[in-house]
Each structure stands twice: as structure tokens, then as C-alpha cells.
């Protein structure tokens, strides 16, 4: 099912005001309703390599698989939806690719990347994430964070050691507890949410949410929701105006209309003929 007419996608990525190169990678496959954002880490250019591998592996593998699979079908073996299984599989594949590259080539030792992936299908969105790259949702004028960071800071907030207010000033914002490519295996956090026409989803690297208050991000989406491309540029510009200490990447996805998965007899016939 081609979602090009269903989803409006705008992306923007920028090295920021301080760093010389951009270790973030973004990728979008509008036809398959897939968007991927990764924020790499590692010496020299290894961060770019890790995040680039993550987005490339996930997008190309998912594209191949989605050409023949229907994500909303139930897998007979473990009674789970195909989409979640497939997405998890591709994230693990990206993980081992990065891990093996890091193991085999000394210049890539220790590289890794955060990740946030959204797969839109059947009036739903499947979200997988690792680390501190985030997904936000703007729905009916309300703006909220969907993912919870895998970071030391978030763990400290959860356990009540510090408040969210103190967290904004904390020194160790940069420590993530989960990432892709660091260990031989990883367990991404995967959730599924129903979507509504008019929703705007924002995927971003920490370069945005560390520099721009959530309130201001929400206001920008509210004011510039009519022009996604401009909204994406405006968000990056706001991060840079506030100092731009890290690479900034944003992906905006607007759901234009309903997109139920084809389930009728005709769809089955069509799938069978293919």
C-alpha cells in the first residue's frame, strides 16, 4: 500500500553551530510509511558511519520485506503482528552490522547510535527507539512527548532522585543507557499507537530538545503546522539560535487521511496474484 498521498513528510538536518560535522542521519521512505532518525557516536567520523548504517540498513531491509509482507497480519508462530516482529528484526540486524564493523575495524571501535523509527500502517504507527532521540506528537493542539529516553537522567527522574526541572540543568545529559551497535545484542523499545488524520509526529535528535524548550517546539508546530517544510527549518534554526551545541535533526510527519490496511477479498486476490 503506497502511503505517499497519505503522509506528508518534511526533514531537516544541520551540524549545528559548534560541531564541524554532522553525526546524525535521517531517512524517509514515504511509500512504505517509514521514517528513521539516528544520532551517532564514536571517534573521528565513526558516529556518522554508525548512524548512516542504522538508517540505511533499516530502510533498505524494511523496503524489501514490505514489498511482500502485510504488516498488520498476525504471525502464526508467536501470535504477534508481523510489523512489530519485522521492525525488531531489522533493528537487530542494524545492531549487529554496526557492532561487527566496530569490532573488525579499529577506527570504528566503540561506535554506536541512538535510534527512533516510525512505521505507519493500517491507521497506526509503530515506534521503536533506543537512547535519547525522541518522538513527539501534536494532536488536536496538544503537544506531548511519546518516547521516554533511555538515559541516566531519565532513570534518575524516574527514581525520584532529581526533578524534571533539575534535570534541565544537570551536567550528565549526555549519558544514554541503551544504544545501537554497542553490544552484540540489544532490545529496542517498541510500542504501537493509533493515529488520527491531522496528527503531526516529530522525530528529533537531542540537539533539538536540549536547546529548545518543549513549549516552544509545540508553539512552532502549532503556528507553522500549515507548512511542514518551514516548520522543520524553523525548529533547526531555533536550536541554532539558542547555541546549536549539537547536531540538530528533525523529521515531521503529518497524517493527511485515514489509511486502513486493505483486508477485503479483493485485497487478498490482489496479493495472491502478485
Amino acid at each position, binding site marked *: 500500500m503506497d502511503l505517499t498521498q497519505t503522509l506528508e513528510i518534511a526533514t531537516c538536518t544541520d551540524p549545528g553551530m*559548534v560541531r564541524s560535522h554532522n*553525526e546524525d542521519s535521517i531517512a524517509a521512505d514515504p511509500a512504505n510509511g517509514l521514517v528513521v532518525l539516528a*544520532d*551517532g*557516536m*564514536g*571517534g*573521528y567520523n565513526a*558516529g556518522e558511519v554508525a548512524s548512516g548504517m542504522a538508517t540505511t540498513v533499516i530502510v533498505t531491509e524494511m523496503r524489501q520485506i514490505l514489498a511482500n509482507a502485510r504488516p498488520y497480519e498476525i504471525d502464526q508462530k508467536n501470535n504477534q503482528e508481523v510489523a512489530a516482529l519485522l521492525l525488531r528484526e531489522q533493528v537487530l540486524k542494524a545492531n549487529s552490522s554496526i557492532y561487527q564493523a566496530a569490532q573488525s575495524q579499529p577506527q570504528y*571501535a*566503540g*561506535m*554506536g547510535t*541512538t535510534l527512533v523509527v516510525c512505521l505507519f500502517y493500517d491507521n497506526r504507527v509503530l515506534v521503536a527507539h533506543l*537512547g*535519547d532521540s525522541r518522538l513527539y506528537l501534536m494532536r488536536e493542539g496538544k503537544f506531548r512527548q511519546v518516547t521516554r529516553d533511555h538515559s*541516566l537522567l531519565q532513570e534518575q527522574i524516574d527514581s525520584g*532522585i*532529581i526533578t524534571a526541572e*533539575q534535570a*534541565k*540543568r*544537570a*551536567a*550528565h*545529559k*549526555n*549519558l*544514554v*543507557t*541503551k*544504544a545501537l551497535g*554497542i*553490544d552484540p545484542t540489544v532490545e529496542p523499545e517498541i510500542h504501537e499507537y493509533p493515529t488520527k488524520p491531522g496528527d503531526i509526529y516529530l522525530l528529533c535528535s*537531542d540537539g533539538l530538545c536540549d*536547546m529548545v524548550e518543549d513549549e*516552544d517546539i509545540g*508553539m*512552532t508546530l502549532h*503556528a*507553522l503546522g*500549515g*507548512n511542514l517544510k*518551514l516548520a522543520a527549518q*524553523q525548529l533547526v*534554526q*531555533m536550536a541554532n*539560535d*539558542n*547555541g546549536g*551545541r*549539537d547536531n540538530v535533526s528533525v523529521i515531521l510527519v503529518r497524517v493527511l487521511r485515514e489509511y486502513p490496511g486493505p483486508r477485503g477479498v479483493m485485497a487478498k486476490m490482489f496479493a495472491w496474484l502478485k
Partner: protein
Amino acid sequence: MAKLILSMDGLVLKEIPLTKERTTIGRKPHNDIQIDNLAVSGEHAVIVTILNDSFLEDLGSTNGTIVNGNPIKKHFLQNNDVIELGKYKLKFVGEAAPAATGEKADFEKTMVLRPAAMKAAQAAGAGAGAQAAVAQRQAAVQAAGASATAAGIADKDARSTPAPAAPSAAAPTKPVQPLGAIQLLSGGNAGRELELTKPLTTLGKPGVQVAVLTRRPQGYFITHVEGDKRPTVNGQEIGAAPHSLKDHDVIELAGVKMEFFLKA
């Protein structure tokens, strides 16, 4: 290493390095920091230091513990926090970036803290005491500098990047800039004035013609958002890129004229 500077009436009495995992403060002699003053309870407060972070906790003292003017029960100490106990003041000075290793840690770079390393670090902090914790931390920083994964921390960058002077300075400081405003020159609300205090203000009619005025450190800009017609500034239609606004520029948008000006 983090330390406390004890002072009274602006006079520095002594410096106390936070070497122990628990540093107790109180009037009785067995405290690590003894303050012999009746306003201070026998066991007044404790500072728990784990690796690089210090937490202050009031131990149910009679007169309470005040940090930066606010009474607290538990507080995550930040550089330059001032703890008040009666007439005494304790200033918390956070750990400076470790210079011994030659390589300095970059606090902005994202790093991975693997659970195994974290547990080891916590165990070291809790069990073997502060010295082990400090050693652990230095090892971790060294490893980060050398971009090695052995210690469990993968650094994003092997370059020797100067650390920011103080992590708390990371908060963006917005330069003072003159406040802009627009005054409507035509239409039903002619004469009305709108101050541009927000980072962005949208103008126009949704679905017909919308523009946004953005407030940036460089000044104010107008950008076309939606609609077939673009707004004009001083009679000239603006392009797709943000257009810088100057004092007394006249904007025309959705049939309404307005003047942009800077307030003194």
C-alpha cells in the same frame, strides 16, 4: 573533586573536599563538618556523593536546611549552590574537569553508559568508598578520552575538546535585544498594536494567507507560510527565505497593512 566552602558573614572559614560517600553536617563533634552553633541541629544534614554527583539531604533538623534561599528536604547539588545553616553558609563547588589525564571530557557529547559499567561504578561508590569511586571515574574518563570501550563508556569523539567552563553554563543566554511590535494601519482594527514577545507570531488568515514573524538574536524576520500570494514588505513581495525586518518597515498581508517598529 567537589568541595564545600564554609563561610560566615562573608568570611571564608575553611574548605572541605567531599572525599567520603557520606559527609555529615551538624553541631555534635562526630560530624564530618562540625558547626558549633545552637541554630544547627546535632545531626543536621548529610551530603551523599556518588561519582560526580552530590545530593544534600536534611536529617529532620529543627531549623531546616536552605539552598539558594529555598528550604529543601533533598537537593541535587549544582555548582555554586549556597547551603545556609543558621548564620553559616556552605558554598558547593562542583568538580572541575579532570586535568590529570590531559584529555578533557566533553560534556555535550552523547556517550553510552552500559548497565554493567554503571553497576560497577555504583558498587564502587557504595561499597569500596569514595576513593575507589574517584579512581573508577578517572578510569572512565581516561577510557573515554582514548575512545576505548573497556571501561564500558564509548566516547563519541577522540579529539581533545575543551570542556565547557561549567556544565551549568550550558543554559542558553539570550542576548538583550530591542522588543519589536507591529501596528495595524488599515482594516477594521486599524491602530491596534501587537508586541512581538514570543519567538514566533503568526499573522493572516489560515487557508488564505499566513506569514510568521520570528524573533531571533539577529532581529526579527518575516517568512511566508501558506497561501498563493506572498506578503509584501515596503511594496516588494518577499521571497521564500526569511526576510529581515527593519524599523518602520510596512508589511501588507491578506489585504491589511501594518507597520513594524522597534520599541526603545
